[in-house]
């Protein structure tokens, strides 16, 4: 821990491997991060960088086989939930950790009414009577901005628009008042005007309910608008982590820098040419012993091929980066290492 309150969720050295016919896929490699109460942690990274697998590993949502969580520790509520039984995990997911999936249609059951699906966890995990559960379900739909909430409880998922289904998903995830909400690309499939509605809603709900949130997205604009802190993933590793302003103002990893330059904006100056990150994502066939970004990195040198860089503290408090290169010159990097040491999460 660097500073602030004790974390609600503290993940250390998480490692997840898929065993496939073509060999092993090392999807998550020694990922460490923490989440403080009430905080919104944004997670960005290119497709396949391990964002979803990381979050699904820590709450036991990956089918095994092919997935295998090979190591690490996930501290939640004073214990390591990687050691929890399947039953305990299920209870945890219903009550204390909410999850929103990218595609609402895959996680809403088309044959049950929306009301039934919101009421079920309330009855199962909170022991509510049907009538109390119905009242609470209507409250939740109302909270996420669905008009005529009480009447809509009787409707089936297909009777809602995409944006409304996403709201229903949020209502379900909030049903039991979780301490932590994990949202995996919750607005990617939505139009910008609907996305703007959902983002306003989330800001509002955070103020009202004060839960901690992990928000996975590939959209740096969304991150800039709602995150307190950002974690950048590449090749199954955390390559940079910083408070949101520090990350955008002073990115330290060459991948983060390139990523920030590839996205055009609708406001401000228009760049005449888009910056490109050449090359391909890494193959993840084995545990990395070198920097996964080195083939695409314009700052790479021999050390990057010999040694996978550890995360180290740089710049502002709470900012760390896993890279051998130092934008301020070699002297400062050494100073950072000796004064603050290697970061763990």
């Amino acid at each position, binding site marked *: 821990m660097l500073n602030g309150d004790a974390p609600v969720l503290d993940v250390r050295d998480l490692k997840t491997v898929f065993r496939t016919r073509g060999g092993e896929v090392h999807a998550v490699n020694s990922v460490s991060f923490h989440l403080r109460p009430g905080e919104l942690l944004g997670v960005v990274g290119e497709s396949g960088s391990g964002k979803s697998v990381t979050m699904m590993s820590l709450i036991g949502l990956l089918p095994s086989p092919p997935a295998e969580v090979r190591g690490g520790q996930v501290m939640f509520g004073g214990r390591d939930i990687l050691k929890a039984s399947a039953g305990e995990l299920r209870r945890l997911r219903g009550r204390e950790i909410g999850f929103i999936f990218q595609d609402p249609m895959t996680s809403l059951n088309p044959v049950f009414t929306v009301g039934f699906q919101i009421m079920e966890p309330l009855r199962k995990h909170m022991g509510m009577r049907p009538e109390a559960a119905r009242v609470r379900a209507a409250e939740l739909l109302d909270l996420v901005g669905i008009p005529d909430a009480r009447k809509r409880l009787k409707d089936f998922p297909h009777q809602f628009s995409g944006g409304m289904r996403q709201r229903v998903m949020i209502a379900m995830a909030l049903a039991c008042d979780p301490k932590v909400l994990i949202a995996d690309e919750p607005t990617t499939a939505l139009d910008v005007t609907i996305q703007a509605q959902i983002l306003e809603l989330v800001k509002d709900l955070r103020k009202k309910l004060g839960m901690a949130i992990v928000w996975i997205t590939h959209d740096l604009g969304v991150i800039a608008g709602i995150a307190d802190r950002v974690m950048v993933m590449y090749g199954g590793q955390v390559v940079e982590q910083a408070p949101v302003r520090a990350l955008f103002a002073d990115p330290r990893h060459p991948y983060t820098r390139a990523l920030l330059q*590839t996205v055009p904006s*609708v406001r401000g100056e228009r760049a005449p040419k888009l910056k490109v990150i050449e090359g391909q994502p890494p193959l993840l066939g084995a545990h990395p012993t070198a920097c996964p970004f080195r083939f695409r990195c314009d700052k790479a040198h021999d050390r990057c091929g010999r040694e996978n860089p550890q995360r180290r503290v740089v710049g502002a408090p709470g900012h760390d980066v896993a890279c051998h290169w130092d934008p301020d010159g070699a002297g400062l990097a050494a100073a950072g290492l000796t004064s603050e040491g290697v970061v763990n999460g």
Partner: protein
Amino acid sequence: MADPARATTEPLVQVRDLKMHFPVSRGLLGRKTGAIKAVDGVSFDIMPRETLGMVGESGCGKSTTGRAVLRLYDITGGSIRINGTEIGQMSQSALRKHRPTMQMVFQDPQACLNPRMTLAGLIGEPLDEHTGWSRARKLERIYELMDAVGLNRNFANRYPHEFSGGQRQRIGIARALALNPSFIVCDEPIAALDVSIQAQVVNLLEELQEKLGLTYLFISHDLSMVRHIATRVAVMYLGKVVEIAPREALYADPLHPYTQALLSSVPDPDPETAQQVRRIILKGDVPSPANPPQGCNFCTRCPAVMPVCREIEPETREVAPGRFVACHLHDASVPTSIPTGGPTPGGASTTNQQGGSS
């Protein structure tokens, strides 16, 4: 923004009052009970070597417009002139002769590439169909195209699954280029790609345009990419074009309340400005194109709606050189309206809808 040279050049593509309605049928006999007005009276020009960006929310009719312009459908009505030839009502057999000059690049590079064909076969397919060239001549052209889109010639005998998303999109672009087209409809060509690869494909499209003098209709829901690539932008809402303007003017000073809401909804990749942007949060969802509202299509969600908007459909007017908008707020002949040219119409009702909505 009016380009004096432009007035003297003929548009390469001229679309007038284009309509594409899909029948809705019910019951055993498939009786026609109505129509989905996917595209309902769309007009625009595209100048040679220009990129017209087309934006709007899911289901507003962008793809249908793109496909209809290439006559992949038998259209419900309207006129389409490409290079001076009217193709709106042309029969599919007569169209065959014109197909080579107009091509399409699709959203999902995976879905439209036959997995059993090699890269050379895929790129050569249009040549097989439309030319009687010898094998050697075709192969020469295939190599030329692979060079043009940045695919290594050694890949010629590989299959699509061996390529990344960005490379597959290059294959799609090479195919579209095979017959030397002058006009290409790019339907969400980067939507399926990772952000870091999107830039590669957009840069390639720009390079090719410069080298080969191509004209693009670039369909996308990514407003920031469209700002990058397009010279002019058309904004669609529920089957209609609500605003067309040169890029700079549109992004600096959107006129239609829908364009204003759309642009203000795009999150900014910068935490400093993210706090400052005044967001217009629209209430509700887009109505169904099978049952559009009376009057202006946007009246059910418009923050600046007036009584007239629920009665009369606004006409498209040129309110400044090159700037077209279909909105009563910008029509001087509508008594309740505010004079044209104002950047924020109906101030009071707009601010009511600002931010922190429930």
